[in-house]
């Protein structure tokens, strides 16, 4: 059984169809890259998998560990192990990052019927994870993402990924707004989370990110469909020849 199966997915936003029958299969342990030009539907796909309101699924299905994902509320999906690293993480003033992380982690654990973390155990776990990502405790005492630099925001996303230990990680344009050093730190964090039980879907415009997070499979999206899939060399090919060649195929 595949971890994630997207079958013939059709999605509308405000009466306009964005995805026209998209299919994608991701197995545990794999890293998939989804590339494509602006407006090809990459972010829509990530939002629909995570359950963001505002999208109307008019056809097809999404199975996660064999279960119908579209029947679940967004928080249920998170509890089941779907994690979306946001392109633009939001700011939540007045709520310290530490409190946010603990509240969220315990909400997930409670929903799964697991014991909630007590403060000392949580802090211990968080310190070790934050340390490995080079995140100072000071940053965690600030409001969630408030006044964070682009790199800090992305590291905070990866920190959450590491803490929540989801089985599916979707990284939406993780490289946007990052300089090369910040990108490397973020990519190292992601690579450390690769495991045989976990799959990742990396959404990006540019091949550059894939030098750091090397994918097993590369998909090219155009106009709401996957138009070509291949190995990591497909990304290099795209870098050389651009997306134009796929526009007609779509």
């Amino acid at each position: 059984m595949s971890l994630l199966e997207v079958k013939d997915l059709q999605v509308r936003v405000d009466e306009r169809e964005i995805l026209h029958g998209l299919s994608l299969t991701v197995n545990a342990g794999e890293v998939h890259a989804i590339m494509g030009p602006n407006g090809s539907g990459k972010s829509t796909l990530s939002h629909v998998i995570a359950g963001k309101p505002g999208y109307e699924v008019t056809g097809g299905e999404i199975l996660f560990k064999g279960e119908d994902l579209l029947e679940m509320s967004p928080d249920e999906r998170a509890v089941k192990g779907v994690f979306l690293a946001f392109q633009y993480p939001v700011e939540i003033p007045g709520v310290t990052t530490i409190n946010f992380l603990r509240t969220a982690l315990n909400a997930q654990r409670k929903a799964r019927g697991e014991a909630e973390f007590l403060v000392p155990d949580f802090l211990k776990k968080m310190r070790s994870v934050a340390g490995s990502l080079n995140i100072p405790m000071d940053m965690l005492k600030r409001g969630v993402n408030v006044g964070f630099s682009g790199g800090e925001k992305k590291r905070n996303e990866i920190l959450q990924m590491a803490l929540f230990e989801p089985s599916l990680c979707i990284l939406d344009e993780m490289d946007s707004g990052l300089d090369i050093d910040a990108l490397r730190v973020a990519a190292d964090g992601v690579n450390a989370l690769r495991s045989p039980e976990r799959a990742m879907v990396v959404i990006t415009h540019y091949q550059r990110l894939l030098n750091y997070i090397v994918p097993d499979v590369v998909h090219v999206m155009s106009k709401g469909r996957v138009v070509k899939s291949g190995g990591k060399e497909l990304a290099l090919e795209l870098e050389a020849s651009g997306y134009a060649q796929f526009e007609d195929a779509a």
Partner: protein
Amino acid sequence: MAAVQETVDRVRRIDVDQYRYGFETLIESDKAPKGLSEDTVRFISAKKNEPAWMLEWRLEAYRRWLTMTEPKWARVNYPKIDYQDLYYYSAPKAKKTVSSLDEIDPEILKTYEKLGIPLREVEVLEGVVRPPEGEEGSGQRKIAVDAVFDSVSVATTFQKELKKAGVIFMPISEAIREHPELVKKYLGSVVPTSDNYFATLNSAVFSDGSFVYVPPGVRCPMELSTYFRINERNTGQFERTLIIADKGAYVSYLEGCTAPQRDENQLHAAVVELVTLDDAEIKYSTVQNWYPGNSEGVGGIYNFVTKRGDCRGNNSKISWTQVETGSAITWKYPSCILRGDNSRGEFYSVAISNGHQQVDSGTKMIHLGKNTTSRIISKGIAAGVSQNTYRGLVTAHRKATGARNFTACDSLLIGDKCGAHTVPYVEAKNSSALFEHEATTSKISEDVLFYCVQRGLTQEEAVGLVVNGFVKDVLQQLPMEFAVEAQKLISISLEGSVG
């Protein structure tokens, strides 16, 4: 963030029509006849065994009230109040002064128990841990409770310890008899009997309230708190509180209220007066959770309150902190008169409106002395079909050179049927005054909620988290005992506002 989790759990169990504190206590009452006349005023005064000067004071207020008209400028709507259709006095029957809680009607104690504010806990606290002499803040903190049940104070605790410190803390009705010189000197000196319609009404018919006097140089050894509760059907509640911090004194006073569910609207017109002399400080905190009416907007308390502090002495300070979640209508502007040089006024407010609630609240900072400073942090949260208005006045007198004010008014909207309004008045009559005003209005963003639910929080948990973050600056000002309670109230009062 265990507290947030807990509040969210509580929110789920409660809905607007199951107002948790909506129960009545069956106790015989001693009521004045319905309606308002000179006779009513005389009845109340006689019930309280008041001296003649007090009766005169009340009658004068009553006569003035007859010449006044109800103010209409606030952004609130309500049916006309028939002042002849209300009771102006009711008291639990038959109990004389008590020396211990055992002598108090068990029904009353039960009521407090349901509210989760057992007086017994105070006794236990008293008996168990006692900080060493002269060491403040160590060990357990203590709270003295002057419980106001309907109109009469039924229990006063901690009297002895306060007495040792020289602090006078008693029902104002007793203070009128026992400390007439203090009451005469200060009562009505901040909020005069002619001040406004509701304050004048209060002056005529006030039933009871708290009186606090902290002598020079004394730091009150404990937090003082009063719990108000309206219990008698159709009885207006007219609290009168007077707190004086003499030179160099300090006192922190907490007030919290809840009321039982009922259909008739209940009028509440309290007056609170604070006076600080040179170098003195008063910190006054309120958590207000009166019945807001049901989901159709029926019932609920009308809360027309006049609260004002007078920084009469130099270098004195008055700080108001309020968390307002209840009442059908709130009309309330805790204010500071910054008379003494270098005096300071503060106003921290969280005002929440849900369902059909209407809130018109804010503050006045009146700078009269030199180098006076004030700070206003107001957080308004509107949900349901409620209307939430901040109305504030900051003014500097001609002689108030170097006056400074900072104001930040933030409004948060939940849903698309509510309204938030900010009405700031700013007047500077001298060129050296420096006033800053910041205001923001935001909707609780879909993106923020989605971010939270993507991390595993339910929609309601997400709202609770975001709102508690929004009001954090104000909650931090509350004494510990109230901060947790306030956080719970905030989440409870926003129940059902999303989804």
